[in-house]
């Protein structure tokens, strides 16, 4: 299935600055594989130190997170805490 | 390391004379951390707190005698001292927490010879004398003669401070002490200022002693500020001169606690404020009889 993807601005190197793209996959991991085909190098960018926000939920380790039709996936840097 | 607790001055003198690595021990708020951090240990710690004379506080018609190891908590609780030397008592109360107040003493504060110590400026302002015991017997010197530099005193090996003597202040006389610290408590003076003034019946200053702490290797007496004050009422223009003179005499260093410029300026500010407080106190009706209520 195809989902809308938004990259936070620090992750847009491989897309030449494009923020909003589309990709497909039933999980976030599969989505990243697809995005890496479209934008070589984006896979590495999105696989380490990156979280996603889906339906308002921040998901820190999203690789196997299931994607439903029509969702938008926001890739954001991973936060930390004290 | 041995621990010894003599009960007389003579016994303490003997102990200190018998071993070169003996150390006097009272509050030891600095000594114990040094030992624990692995510094060489003294061979014997001579605890002076079991000598009654060193812990006693006594007063007479004319004077006070305060044991060198009397806890500052006791000084602050002594009604006679509180009335006669409110500034000196304030200075005493500022040494550390309640916990430290039960260990710190004028003797320790003076013998450590820290330029930032709180009580020496007030002790000097009140013309205190110290009795020092040692192998050669006892001698009495002005309190300003004890510390001669950071960590250095004029006392010989084997000597220790036994007690402080303070004359009862004359009528219409009072002192004050102020210090600047970043925190309200648990801190070391960045600048300290003590003032003692005597007023005449018209409110003019007849005698003044103004001293500064933490702005030079030892307590500094602000003679020009005293001169500016004597013969005058402590009005604004006079106080301006006091402030300027106190700033001018300060000779501080830059260090982790403050800068030269800051210490110099604040020395003047605190000296001025201390003079104002001392003069207000001196003018209180009950001071007419010279510190006795």
């Amino acid at each position, binding site marked *: 299935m195809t989902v809308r993807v938004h990259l936070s601005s620090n992750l847009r190197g491989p897309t030449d600055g494009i923020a909003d793209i589309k990709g497909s996959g039933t999980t976030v991991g599969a989505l990243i594989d697809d995005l890496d085909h479209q934008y070589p190098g984006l896979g590495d960018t999105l696989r380490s130190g990156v979280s996603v926000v889906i339906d308002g939920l921040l998901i820190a380790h999203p690789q196997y997170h299931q994607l439903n039709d029509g969702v938008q996936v926001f890739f954001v840097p991973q936060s930390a805490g004290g | 390391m041995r621990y010894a607790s003599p009960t007389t001055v003579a016994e303490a003198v003997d102990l200190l004379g018998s071993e070169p690595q003996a150390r006097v021990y009272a509050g030891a*708020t600095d000594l*114990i951390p040094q030992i624990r951090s692995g510094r060489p240990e003294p061979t014997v710690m001579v605890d002076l707190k079991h000598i009654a004379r060193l812990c006693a506080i006594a007063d007479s018609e004319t004077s006070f005698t305060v044991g060198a190891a009397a806890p500052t908590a006791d000084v602050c609780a002594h009604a006679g001292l509180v009335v006669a030397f409110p500034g000196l008592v304030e200075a005493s109360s500022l040494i*550390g*927490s*309640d916990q430290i107040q*039960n260990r710190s003493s004028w003797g320790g504060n003076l013998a450590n010879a820290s330029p930032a110590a709180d009580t020496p400026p007030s002790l000097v302002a009140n013309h205190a004398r110290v009795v020092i015991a040692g192998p050669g017997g006892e001698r009495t010197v002005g309190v300003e003669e004890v510390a001669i530099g950071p960590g250095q005193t004029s006392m010989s090996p084997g000597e220790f401070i036994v007690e402080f003597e303070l004359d009862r202040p004359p009528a219409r006389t009072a002192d004050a002490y102020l210090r600047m610290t970043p925190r309200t*408590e648990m801190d070391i003076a960045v600048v300290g200022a003590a003032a003692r003034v005597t007023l005449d019946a018209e409110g003019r200053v007849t005698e003044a002693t103004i001293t500064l702490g933490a702005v030079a290797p030892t307590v500094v007496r602000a003679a020009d500020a005293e001169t500016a004050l004597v013969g005058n009422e402590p009005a604004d223009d006079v106080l301006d001169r006091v402030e300027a003179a106190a700033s001018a005499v300060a000779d501080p260093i830059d260090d982790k606690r403050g800068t030269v410029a800051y210490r110099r300026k604040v020395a003047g500010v605190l000296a001025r404020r201390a003079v104002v407080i001392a003069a207000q106190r001196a003018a209180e009706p009950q001071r007419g009889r010279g510190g006795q209520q």
Partner: protein
Amino acid sequence: MSRVHVTCTINGDPVEFLCDGGQTLLDALRDEVGLTGAKEGCGTGDCGTCSVVMDGRLLCSCLVLAAEAEGSIVSTVEGMADGDDLHPLQQCFLEGAALQCGICTPGFLIAAKALLDRNPDPTETEVRYGLAGNLCRCTGYDKIVRSVMDAAKKINAGTGDHH
């Protein structure tokens, strides 16, 4: 090196222990006597977590030689409660959430008891200055100060009837 033999009273019990001449009362309490309620936060008298009362005086036990305790009466946090009966300060600290991590709590309780023994009805300012020798990094002191004042009320009202 021969050790110093000390006989004293701790929390009402006669205690004997051996210590080194340079050993602090804090280390002796913790390592020789087995009372670990007093903590070491700094070792320089700046944090108050090692507070004990010796012969009626509140002290930082990290700045006292153990040998000095000879013949003395020492009170630590372990002796504050009367059996299962908590001291009003302990009760108020619990109810008032005056502790978070709890490492400073023994020192605060001892210092607060010494404060109330000396000044049974302190103002907020007096409590704050009276406890200035005890550092707490968790609470911002608010609930500690309130709990001490609550305990003072309780004790003064006789509802916290306790030794």
